[in-house]
């Protein structure tokens, strides 16, 4: 079956996501980049699960999806908190503490 193609797509999404987390300055876009990485993981898990003929890959992917939703909920709440206090979600502004 096609395994390498899926893994390649997963690797591509992973790299895009890591680049986005490191390069983006907007809080919400960074959250979206993290989601890209998690979806790369899901593609990997499901492709490997099908390749190995085991249900465990899909189960793992379901757990990742569910927990990622909870995680993003908290993340958006924190970004909202920052927006309320600062009127901006530019991450480069959030640097009161250094060193």
């Amino acid at each position: 079956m096609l395994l390498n193609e899926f893994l390649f797509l997963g690797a591509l999404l992973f790299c895009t996501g890591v680049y986005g987390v490191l390069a983006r300055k907007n809080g919400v876009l960074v959250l979206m980049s993290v989601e890209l990485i998690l979806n790369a993981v899901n593609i990997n898990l499901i492709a490997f699960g099908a390749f190995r003929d085991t249900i465990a890959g899909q189960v793992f992917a379901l757990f990742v999806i569910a927990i990622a939703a909870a995680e993003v909920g908290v993340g958006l709440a924190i970004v909202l908190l920052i927006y309320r206090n600062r009127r901006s979600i530019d991450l480069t502004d959030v640097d009161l503490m250094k060193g």
Partner: protein
Amino acid sequence: MTAAASPGALPFHAPYIDYHALAPEIVLSTVVVVVLVLDLLVDETRKYLVTQLAGLGVVASAVPLLSLAARHGTHSWSMFGGAYVVDNFSLVLKALFIFTGYIVLLMSTNYIEEGDYYEGEFSFLVLSSLLGMVVMASARDLITIFVALELLSIPAYMLAGWRKRDLRSNEAALKYYLLGVLATAVMLYGMSLIFGFTGTTVLSQIGAQIAGSAGSHPIVTVGIFFIVVGFAFKVSAVPFHFWAPDVYEGAPTPVTAFLSVASKTGGFVALFQLIFVGFYGRYDVYGPLFWVLAALTMTVGNLVALRQTNIVRMLAYSSIGQAGYILVPFAVAGTNARAAHSSQTASIVYLLIYAAMNLGAFAIVIAVARRTRSGDIASYSGLFTYAPGLTVVMTIFLFSLAGVPPLGGWFAKFYVFRAVADAGTAWAWVLGVLVAVNSVIALFYYAGVARQMWMNPAPDGDRRPLRVPPPLAAALGLCALVVMAIGVYPQAFARMGDVASLLR
């Protein structure tokens, strides 16, 4: 429940569940729910009831641990096809987590009450995070480890931002959250590769599959690398440590104590299980990786701690340095069977002792900040003249962290050296020398705080005695008791480290 009758469906087998072995988790989950509901029902003036109930619940969850330890000897319960194991290792570490959780609740009682923050939800989040840690100590499966990690992390993100209108607290929450989720995502990518190579998520089966020559496939190497890097963020190992000082400074101090001890220990426990059960056969991958992480972590942590002027930042860098010492045994674990055993003992004993002394130091920081309203090391000058008791106890914690002989921290370092000696390779000895050099560097900044407290005069000649509220005093007393007890009678803790071996 019965299996669906459709032709392709697998028959359903009810999993084996031992309710006695799961009792600590069941008690904790019940308390979590009760605390959440009770918080809605009691009125604003009686919120302390919720905190008290949370504390009682944590103590109650330790009772089944004792009965399990008494019943069990060398027996262990393996549930859900080996995904959830209750053995000596998990009992010792669950006890450590529950101790830590209780101390943090004691420390935060007055802090949260006086700061006009939400009390009930605070206890709820601490307990949820604690539940995640207790589950982590038994998780022997990639999915369970992931779920436990998220259960212990997500409440911690919220706790870091507890002071909603304080910009520093916001910033701490944001930094902790972003780096935490990035680390989790990277770790998950590694897990997906390991799962792809082995076709299973259970660590013992993964271990059996990658131990042989087939396991030297590059995909396993990449998978282990990503997983270790993910957890290196969690335990704030250099070069993945930069979030830690900012988060520790910005978060409320009891939460900082919780993050620097409990959350970090959670990361180490996961690493233990992954390395010693799952990836033990691939020492060629994780050995050099941990060597670099350990060497960098202790050196950078201690050197940067030297020039800190804020006590919380100093303790943050000191805890980074301590994480480096705990990583040393991982770097030498795979050289031979003796080193494998003694390095496990070393890391577990270190975690137990580190928890008591670091929590104690943070309890003092909270007690002193009630008076001085400042985190500057300079504000500790003359502490002896108005709070002699606190000064003596803080000195004990500081010298224990530095590893001065009769105290617990010295004993922990001794075990690290023993693991290095058992490994006996040139690289291991280099690491041993680095530990020794770093211990000397660390003595400078710990002694610097001690000098401020003992030698310098109090600012403004203000010598009113410092009042410590009873819960905080109890937390301090417990921590001091443990640190002293280890110094006087170390065999008891060495025994805990010895019985908690994961290797069969």
